[in-house]
């Protein structure tokens, strides 16, 4: 029932469709602008033609367009879709076509993220993780240890006055992962193919979250509320990614960036995401392959792109030569440090089923409905059931 006509026939006013390579993204405004200039630069340097489109709800769009052959040739997103998308046959293994030696070009973590079961499905260009941001007007120097941090939080916490110890969207497993991993626990281990929800170490991390952070946060764990608290200068700390930094600065907050504080008996280790240029199955039989590959290679290896990305957007380079470069700003360096202690998110399609039950469990725990262990045991159960249902 599927037509082969891959371009649609809208009375379009954007791209002229057809020949050019389709690129999709959901970047925020500033990021998108920069991308446009890179593409223009690329088109000028080479003879290629790339049509970049910002789509809404990228996941759904890809889900419905890739199977019918109407999807993009190349798109960008964090690396956690590699497993599931490949599993459905929507990605293109570019390993045989590449003209660069990826092993040498990218950091190990980045490479790990881009490959899945020996295939290379995308090229990495930035890493991303959470760090400790602090308000310099409220805290002189960032705490080294959790105990120090708790002390400061204790000082500042006064909800009746609208002051909070910390801003932390901690019901989200992505943000909570640093502490879940702190004592050796984990949610899902790619290599061993195991769930870590029931491990004592995992539970200990969760309990740390509940005991040491939650009491000092505003009662609404949603991302927006937490960010607002810090953004309005009502909390000394926030644990969040680099993308918020410029927003905070615009609001007049003097933001400092630091490594997550250490804790007795463990080290925080946040999930790290790696931004990739994904290659889709549309490349299978099209002439777009060359363009796409060339663009991705160019984008991920051109110094100027990597550095200005780092400069202007706080992207942490994953190019092996530049990841520890001196040219990086302090901010990027600080986040890079967090990346270095971080853990790459698993690529397996199984990971897709882990997030929601874990988030639900965290919410229940934070609401005081359930203790950490039973909640996580239940989550594990749900995840396993979901795996089974999907034959994973």
């Amino acid at each position, binding site marked *: *029932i*599927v037509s082969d006509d891959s371009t649609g026939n809208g009375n379009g006013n954007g791209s002229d469709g057809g020949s050019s390579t389709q690129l999709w993204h959901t970047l925020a405004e500033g990021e998108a602008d920069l991308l446009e200039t890179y593409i223009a630069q690329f088109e000028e340097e080479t003879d290629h033609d790339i049509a970049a489109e910002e789509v809404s709800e990228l*996941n*759904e769009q890809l*889900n*419905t367009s*890739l*199977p*019918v052959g109407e999807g993009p040739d190349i798109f960008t997103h964090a690396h956690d879709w590699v497993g599931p998308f490949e599993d*459905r*046959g*929507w990605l293109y293994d570019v390993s045989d076509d590449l003209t660069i030696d990826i092993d040498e070009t990218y950091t190990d973590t980045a490479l790990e993220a881009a490959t899945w079961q020996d295939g290379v499905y995308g090229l990495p260009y930035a890493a991303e993780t959470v760090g400790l941001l602090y308000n310099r007007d409220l805290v002189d120097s960032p705490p080294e240890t959790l105990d120090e941090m708790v002390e400061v939080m204790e000082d500042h916490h006064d*909800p009746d006055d*609208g002051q909070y110890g910390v801003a932390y969207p901690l019901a989200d497993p992505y943000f909570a992962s640093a502490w879940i991993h702190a004592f050796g626990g984990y949610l899902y281990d790619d290599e061993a193919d195991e769930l870590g929800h029931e491990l004592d170490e995992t539970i200990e991390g969760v309990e740390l979250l509940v005991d040491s952070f939650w009491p000092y946060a*505003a*009662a*609404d*764990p*949603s991302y*927006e*509320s937490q960010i*607002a*608290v810090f953004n309005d200068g009502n909390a000394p700390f926030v644990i969040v990614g680099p993308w918020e930094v410029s927003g905070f600065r615009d609001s007049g907050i003097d933001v400092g960036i630091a490594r997550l504080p250490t804790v007795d008996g463990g080290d925080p280790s946040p999930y790290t995401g790696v931004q990739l240029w994904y290659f889709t199955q549309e490349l299978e039989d099209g002439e777009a392959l060359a363009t796409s590959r060339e663009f991705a290679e160019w984008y991920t290896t051109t110094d100027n792109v990597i550095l200005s990305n780092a400069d202007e957007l706080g992207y942490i380079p994953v190019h092996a030569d530049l990841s520890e470069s001196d040219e990086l700003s302090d901010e990027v360096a600080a986040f890079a440090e967090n990346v270095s202690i971080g853990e790459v998110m698993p690529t397996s399609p199984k990971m897709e*089923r882990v997030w*929601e039950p874990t988030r*639900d*469990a965290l*919410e*229940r725990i*934070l*609401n005081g409905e359930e203790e950490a262990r039973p909640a996580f045991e239940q989550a594990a159960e749900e995840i396993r059931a*979901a795996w089974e*249902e*999907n034959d994973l």
Partner: protein
Amino acid sequence: MSLSTARKRGQELLDEQPFTRIDAGLLLVLPGLLLFLAFMVFPIGYLIWISFTDATHAGTVLSDESQFIGLENYYTLLSDGQFWNSLGITWLFVAISLLFKIIVSISIALVLTHSRVIGKRYMRAIILMPLGFPAIFMITIWRGMFSGARFGVFNQLLGTWNGFVHWIVAGIDTILFGITVSAPEILMADVPIGWLSERWMAFAAYATTEVWLAYPFMMIIIVSALQDVPDQLHDAAKVDGAGYLRRFVHVTLPSIKRPVVFASILTAASSFQQFLLPWVFNRGGPSRQNELLLVYGYREATNLQQYGMASAIMVTAILFIGAFMLIAVKKTDIAEGVNNE
């Protein structure tokens, strides 16, 4: 009544012309019907087909890779506790929000048609405007208002209320010096309330927002109906010795009953299919406890990549809503018109 005779006369007039004996009326309605069917029948049929297959992600559907597995999805569905929870919570949501919709809309309509209110027409015009805003937009705003943080709009409101109670109590204290009265717990709200993180609070938030989304439509219908109530009926009731409340019960309510029923059926049906609201608020949470039927189906399809199952859920939902509408329309005999008794 007058309405149906009007129709009869017209029918006679037009049908009995020699050259229109063949169902000319049918020719007029057919294009619309066919167009509608073209876009509705196939999708529903296709949906039913998918529900009999083991389709997983959208790809398996679109590239026809799925296998026919008969009623298996339905067996699984019926034995899934989550389904029954969804179904229950959906009906509860429909019932509770409908109840409040009716109460709120009637109250607003009464206020905004009251003879003592000056400028009521403008007020009604203003109140109508939210109908023009996209649902996704309003729902997102409401989610913001239900923030569980102390500084969330509703929590601040409660804070203000607590302050007010305190102030009163302190006032009483100073009047009755010597005796210390403490603020009664029962009057105070325990701020902050995690509106979206507790099951029934979240449910209440859903219902509140749903009421807000639906009241303008219901209100115009009620206002229209109220304006059709002859003043003389009220005069008659006054002379008969009825006060405001009794006039409301005996004159106003019966007169607006059918329009209200009509609006209720429509909004109840749309409540049943409410998707954006729970999805945006907390994805039917916390912990899927408030997962309305459509959210359940949608999650099954997009998050869990189980299209066959999702289709089974949607088909079931359509069956339920279809049955609901059929019964409602039959019972209230609304097909011919709202005032057709």
